[in-house]
């Protein structure tokens, strides 16, 4: 979907200014070895190559950055002292990155009701729900840097009661946001020693949802640990295999995929474009009846059950994060399982971000409402009018299908949407990927990432992840804000 990436950059040694991680590339391992021999100093080296395990480096780093794009990176570097991997991957969509960055910066660094160490600790709590060690360790550092009490890092049992009470909605918002009720809000706000103020709570809720969904992005894009994080470096000499195998498997797997299924894939793509055209031109031929429309949503909901991810053999070892997590078994559960009492579907028209959510946030935490609104708009409207190798494609149908599908997974229904479109436009592997990343991102695997949309560019897959991030955040926010509204009335 990206025009500037149309000619894949050959990317030999990437321009060294912005990517400290890559500058000490294996090409100079010789000197490295010499140096380490001489001084007996262990020199850490990056384990992986590039910011993402799923996406080859050359896709992410571009030499010919435009001024504005570079400006964002510089901005990010100047204000946080690093250009982290998330920023680099998001940099594939600089328009969005700018908005994302502004928001995150405001949430963490600017005036707000919560003290700084609270903010970072909340980030840790949120990311730990999805076992996203990348974000957890990043924010543990930050937490200590702003003067947080190191004891807190021993786990939830060592933090003030106030913080611990937040854990309940953290859990719910992370996995089953539809369960949040006004009683939860009441509990947090009721007067007492460890009560929250409304403004603080809004700040916390925004942070929680932000980091839940950012965890989705991190895991969905396979973001590698930073160089200075555990698992981000090794002292051992770079075994040529590991390096090579990484890149080899990268390109190899892709080629293999392309080779094996290139015809299939191409065909799929053509079909998809054809379908979009058809749908765009109108549905006169098959005007669905109202009941039909109503059931389609239900069907889509139910079908989303079926696309549960294949339980992967490699179960993560989340031991070091478990201290930040209580009730770890609480996970995403489809709300529309048959035979169970299902909470009523959330109607997007009755509580929308534009009308209600924004108005509420703007009242309690003014700047953030504006920033989030901008961010949602940017991501919803982001398009390059390309699909894989096709140009001038109106992708709005596809984007809307993805967005609504994510909301559907969380039980939000748009009256004015025909959920049959989802079925037509989103292939099964994509659905699996979306559902996994949105609901249990910790189970995402590279196979899934590679498995869908085989002919699309990586930047387009990142685009999907951005949609995922924002749609998921909006969904959780909507549930939380609705509960707060109900509490207030």
């Amino acid at each position, binding site marked *: 979907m990206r025009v500037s990436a149309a000619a894949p950059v050959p990317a030999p040694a990437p321009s060294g200014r912005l990517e400290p991680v890559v500058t000490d590339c294996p090409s100079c391992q010789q000197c490295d070895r010499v140096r380490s021999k001489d001084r007996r100093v262990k020199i850490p080296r990056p384990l992986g190559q590039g910011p993402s395990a799923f996406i080859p480096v050359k896709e992410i780093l571009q030499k010919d950055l435009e001024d504005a794009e570079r400006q964002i990176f510089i901005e990010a570097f100047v204000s946080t002292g690093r250009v982290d991997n998330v920023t680099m991957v998001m940099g594939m969509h600089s328009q969005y990155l700018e908005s994302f960055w502004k928001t995150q910066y405001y949430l963490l660094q600017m005036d707000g009701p919560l003290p700084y160490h609270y903010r970072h600790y909340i980030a840790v709590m949120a990311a730990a729900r999805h076992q996203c060690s990348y974000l957890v360790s990043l924010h543990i550092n930050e937490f200590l840097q702003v003067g947080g009490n190191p004891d807190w890092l021993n786990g939830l049992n060592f933090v003030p009661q106030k913080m611990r009470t937040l854990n309940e909605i953290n859990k719910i918002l992370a996995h089953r946001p539809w369960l949040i009720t006004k009683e939860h809000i009441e509990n947090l706000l009721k007067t007492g020693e460890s009560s929250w103020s409304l403004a603080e709570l809004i700040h916390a809720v925004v942070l929680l949802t932000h980091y839940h969904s950012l965890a989705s992005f991190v895991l969905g894009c396979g973001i590698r640990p930073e160089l200075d994080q555990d698992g981000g470096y090794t002292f051992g000499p770079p075994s040529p295999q590991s390096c090579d195998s990484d890149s080899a498997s990268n390109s190899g797997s892709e080629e293999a995929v392309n080779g094996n299924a290139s015809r299939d894939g191409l065909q799929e793509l053509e079909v998809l474009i054809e379908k979009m055209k058809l749908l765009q031109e109108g549905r006169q031929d098959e005007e669905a009846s*109202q009941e039909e429309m109503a059931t389609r949503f239900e069907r889509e909901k139910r079908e989303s059950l079926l696309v549960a991810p294949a339980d992967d053999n490699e179960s993560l070892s989340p031991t070091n994060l478990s201290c930040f997590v209580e009730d770890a078994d609480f996970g995403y559960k489809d709300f529309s399982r048959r035979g169970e009492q299902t909470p009523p579907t959330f*109607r997007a028209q009755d509580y929308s971000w534009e009308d209600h959510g*924004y108005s509420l946030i703007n009242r309690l935490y003014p700047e953030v409402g504006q920033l989030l609104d901008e961010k949602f708009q940017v991501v919803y409207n982001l398009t390059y009018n390309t699909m894989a190798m096709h140009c001038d494609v109106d992708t709005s149908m596809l984007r809307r299908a993805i967005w609504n599908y994510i909301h559907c997974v969380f039980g939000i229904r748009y009256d004015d949407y025909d959920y049959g479109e989802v079925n037509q436009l989103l292939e099964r592997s994509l659905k699996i990927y979306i559902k996994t990343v949105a609901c249990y991102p910790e189970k995402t695997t590279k196979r899934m990432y590679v498995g869908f949309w085989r002919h699309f560019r990586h930047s387009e897959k990142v685009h999907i992840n951005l949609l995922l991030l924002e749609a998921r955040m909006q969904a959780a926010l909507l549930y939380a804000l609705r509960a707060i509204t109900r509490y207030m*009335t």
Partner: protein
Amino acid sequence: MGSLGEVDHSEDYVEEQGSYLQLMKGRGEDHGESGSALAAPSGQEDTVDTPRHFRAQPFPSLPKRAERLVAQAHVTRVYITWGGTLVGVVAGEGRRRRFPVAGGGRKGGGDGFRVHGGGRQAFHKIDLPLHNWQRCLKLLVFSMEKMARVTTVLSGSTITGRTMFCHLDAPANAISVCRDAAQVVVAGRNIFKIYSIEEEQFVERANLRVGRKLSLNFSCADVVWHQMDDNLLATAATNGAVVTWNLGKPSRNKQDQLFTEHKRTVNKVCFHPNEVNMLLSGSQDGYMKCFDLRKRESVSTFSGQSESVRDVQFSIKDYFAFAASFENGNVQLWDIRRPDRYERMFTAHNGPVFCCDWHPDDRGWLATGGRDKMVKVWDLSTTRTKEVYCVQTIASVARVKWRPEMKYHLATCSMMVDHNIYVWDIRRPYIPFGMFEEHKDVTTGIIWRHIHDPYYLLSGSKDSTLYQHMFKDASRPVDRANPEGLCYGLFGDLAFAGKDSMFTSDSNRKTYGGERRYPIFFFKKPDLSEQFANVSSSLNVFEMEGGSNSVDWFVNMAQQYILTGRSLAELCDHNAKIAKELYRYQVAQTWTMLRIVYSSPGAISSVNLNQSIGKSGGLPLMNSLKELSVALNNEPRLERGKAENWQEMNHIHSSNPLITANEENEETEGSDVPADYLFGDVEGDEDDLYMVDHENAPAEEHEYILPQEAFQLRHEIIDNPSAPDHLQDKVESPHVSGNEAETVCLTPIESFSLMSISQPLYDAYLPADYFNSLVKDMLHYYAEQGDVQMAVSVLIVLGDRIRKEIDEQTQEHWYTSYIDLLQRFKLWNVSNEVIKLSTCSSINCFNQASTSLHINCSNCKRPMSSKGWICDRCRQCASMCAVCHQVVKGLFVWCQGCSHGGHLQHIMNWLRTSSHCPAGCGHLCEYT
């Protein structure tokens, strides 16, 4: 210009209730407006250009607009001439009257034709637009019965009722009333019902939500009742369908037509005010569609070329125009005949514009309400769009509705959080004129019950209730508002605004703005309840006697005080001197005392002390000062003599030393004061303090006499008096700096013998914070007296010695008030110093906020976005001195106009000789 038509109202016609006549007259003349396909083709072509034939047919409803023109007699007939003159026959008189009507007749350019009706008591001017000119001309003939009804409505006798409500089964999304104000329709996601409005209650008349399977077509986002046809309703469904309903249908399901052309939720539907079959819709997909109800699909589609349409409203006056408001903050005006392009677009709000409403009378006034919490009134009558009024509310504005018959009133309700309905007088945007507080959840729909009745408001809400509000029951926030205002000026002037009545007695006072006492409130109808309470208030300004001199001391002291950088003693001395020079003796004394309390005794003997004694002789405090020096002489001896008992005494009775002192010093005036009063009372009074001071100064003195020679004057280089080790300060104080005092002769004698006793003595029994509670009270005293300057200065000078005594919040409060004062006097440097020196973290961060400076590159004049001094466009250093062409390191001063500048000194020199920019750009530089 013959009379166009004449309608004779025979009595039987009048009695025939509910029947109307419509006269059709064909005209062959082509008036140049080729018919847009909007209008009903009459089916008959008539090419004769004189009135020739009338055709009577039932006319379904009375036109919406009716405006009273004359109200004198019963009018039985009307005529209208081609010139637009209205002729009426007045009952009983049998003669004709002519009523020239402004704007009557046909105007070019899409204007409506005006036809006029008569009534029992009034003439009603009715706009009947004529579309499709060359085909047909519709003339309206009114029903006398209906007219009479409307007339009585206007006189307030038909619509009666009270504030009442009924429970709905589900939350409402929108409501609408039928033309005769007798019924209301409520629509929501799970409700679609019609209620009739009775005197005492709402009665459910019909439930339109019927059917075996309730599709989403019943889930209404908006509903509107046709103002010409009582049977016609339209709803906007959340799934994008536009549905019309015909109540006249015999079947249970009244659904009439279904348009599913919109792809997204339809936010709004709107009937044309005069045209039966024309319906307009605005949808989330960014399109507006115009439907002709006789056709199966839309007649025309208007693309806003932008985001979702939130509201569409037909203009009431202008037949072809409608306004649409958008989610991106724009409002567009369209001509219904030109679907290709909007006539006008302007940005009305920041964020979505949720609603708009045309003023019922004033053509061209459009009220809009947005998510930015504003209601704005736009004048669109001229080519330039002008914002004429703006009301700031407290929440996003969901609906806005002009109040009938009240030119400046409108009602609003909000989207979130705030559940009340407000009626505003747009000329008084700061306080609502009326307020209805009945709803428990957000109000989703408001509508005035009748288009000519301003007293009844209906509202539906998410709390599943439908209310009728009586305007007289509205609460009037203005009644609860405090009509007085009071403010101090910077130089001690006092401004007081209050109701006029408060000032009538003494007229000699100068009131500001007395001329325009009733500036804007003039209503045609002198109905008291319909006006804002006539709050004409006057403003009085009381000036300080002696002009502005009275606060000079504040500025001077602020500038001259030294708060840091020297020893405590010196700071105190300096500040005392400053205060004295400004005739602030009490403050000066306080400083002196502080010095004594917290500093070593040597300081007391300094020149300053003596000076103060000499100069301030008129003050009562002087006595104690004298006493002080005497005490200095006496106490050591006393203590030395009682060294053994001293410990216990101090331990048990805090007042003991004083007593002993008094015993010894009979000649001092201080002995007049009852001894126990001195320590027991914590008033913070000067005298008390003083008594305390000279009581203790000696005690400290013993202790510090010893080290004097060794560490002379050292602490002058210690530049942080607020450093925690103030004890050291004392130890090192320049004891013998002022030799003239009596202490000098005392020291050589005493010092030797004292050293053995005094050291343990002091440490054990007079801890450094011994006086803290007194000083604390003193600070509070000053702060309460309004001299926050003193409080803060002492706080800073004493630093850690006192800080812990006073709670953070009070300190912060003092600091902020002082800083605020300083900034009002534009003492930026002083205020910044105070901020810097303060120990409250919340104060400290004041000067860390908004510290970024936006600069332009002096070469390319573009904003410099990157950090540092290299412009990333022209790759040059932007901070070159325009005079010496060197890079400026250090103070850089530049003109904000042309971005050129340089070394401060260079620029200053340059500007002495020339006022143009040294860079040669020709700019007349301005430095402030």
